[in-house]
């Protein structure tokens, strides 16, 4: 295909991402699993990029996990989402920035429903008005937080202290990128690169000096799958999905896995530990695991933030091999030190590849 043709086709895979003035909605589970990620995102946007991003402490869960587990009805989740939009409208914002991929999918699903079925929108307006007295406008722009980091990836690269280059070999780090299923598999037009060529994490990796690994099970789900995990006896389905991916990526000797979803880094991180405990198998170099990072953590490392401020001590798969390759200095003694310098305690269970 001619270059002009490629450019024209690629236009169909782009999405509009607002430039500034975001209303930020956090994720329920990321604040527990990767507590430094969202704070790092806000810090990068406000301090590094000088953007206006507002969050209201009264915003709640989108209830997506309950919805996908069949315990929250559609009318209920629509009204909960309408309340988030009401908080955004009251604060004078029009651009929604979601931290969570599940929420991102939920917001898109509900907005698309309202476009297709305006009667649903009117019904929900009445529900919210009668329950809370609030009114709302539908957001003009809905972006996932990774879309925003993608949009400003080159601005971050211009401020970087470290590149994704192996200091020992001088070669680009080999990174596996893993997109959350609800990012673009549900509504391909809502994700950068669509469902076929998701580019949101690829763009970050390439912009920051790394190299993306293309492996057979690249687009396979991490296995979270809500009900696959919520019922303990079903977790074998979840871990088996992750194992399939690890087996597929292992021959390429990845240095790290980069994710943009709350569930994916949680499970790709924790399941490596579980597989090691259950089968004695690890998938990284020299018997270690493959470090799993969120895009905010990766951006924070590139910008030279302290790894322990980013919350990397909360990962069950050891991240030190990656820090050593990038050449980041860290104090192992402070790994489990809290903000006030007091030790927060070492985990009782030993992590993968320790």
């Amino acid at each position: 295909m001619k270059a002009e043709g490629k450019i024209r086709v690629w236009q169909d895979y782009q999405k509009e991402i607002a430039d500034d003035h975001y209303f930020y909605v956090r994720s329920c589970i990321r604040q527990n699993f990767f507590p430094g990620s969202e704070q790092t995102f806000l810090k990068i946007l406000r301090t590094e990029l000088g953007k206006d991003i507002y969050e209201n402490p009264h915003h709640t869960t989108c209830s997506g996990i309950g919805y996908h587990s069949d315990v929250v009805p559609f009318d209920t989740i629509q009204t909960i989402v309408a309340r988030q939009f009401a908080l955004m409208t009251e604060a004078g914002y029009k651009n929604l920035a979601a931290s969570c991929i599940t929420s991102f999918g939920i917001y898109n699903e509900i907005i698309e429903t309202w476009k297709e079925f305006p009667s649903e929108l009117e019904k929900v307006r009445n529900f919210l008005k009668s329950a809370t007295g609030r009114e709302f406008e539908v957001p003009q722009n809905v972006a996932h937080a990774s879309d925003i980091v993608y949009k400003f990836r080159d601005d971050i690269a211009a401020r970087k202290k470290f590149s994704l280059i192996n200091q020992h070999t001088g070669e680009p780090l080999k990174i596996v990128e893993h997109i959350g299923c609800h990012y673009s598999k549900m509504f391909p037009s809502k994700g950068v690169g669509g469902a076929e060529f998701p580019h949101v994490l690829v763009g970050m990796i390439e912009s920051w000096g790394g190299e993306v690994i293309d492996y057979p099970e690249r687009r396979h789900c991490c296995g979270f799958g809500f009900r696959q995990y919520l019922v303990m006896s079903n977790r074998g389905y979840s871990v088996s999905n992750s194992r399939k991916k690890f087996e597929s990526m292992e021959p390429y000797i990845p240095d790290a896995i980069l994710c943009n979803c709350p569930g994916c880094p949680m499970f790709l991180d924790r399941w490596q530990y579980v597989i090691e405990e259950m089968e004695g198998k690890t998938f990284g170099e020299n018997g270690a695991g493959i470090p799993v990072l969120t895009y905010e953590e990766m951006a924070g490392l590139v910008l030279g933030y302290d790894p322990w401020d980013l919350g990397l001590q909360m990962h069950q798969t050891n991240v030190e091999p990656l820090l050593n390759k990038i050449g980041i200095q860290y104090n192992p003694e402070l790994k489990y030190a809290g903000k006030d310098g007091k030790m927060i305690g070492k985990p009782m269970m030993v992590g993968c590849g320790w």
Partner: protein
Amino acid sequence: MKNFGYSIIKQRTIDYDQFDGRLLNEVLEMEPSFKVCLSCGGCTATCSAGDLVSFNVRRMNLLLRRGETIELESEIQKCMLCGKCMLVCPRGINLRNVIMLIKKSIAKYKPINS
């Protein structure tokens, strides 16, 4: 090894890069009539052993063609060599000979770590 209350499911993916076709090729060479099997399942429907245990001649064919020799070895032990499958086969395949050839050669081609 720890027990977390669930297990890891073994992959059912057939990796054709790892496919070991030696047993299949030997059987096809020694019993060429097996090449024309159309997997109609008449053999399985009439099988005396299949009436009593979970033996399935068509599945045996599938395991052989996928190179799954470990499962195949335990499967063919169930055959009583009565030959009824040969009476109904629309392609006239000598299935008893196929079973005998597999039994004779399978030990040679089993994976070392099985």
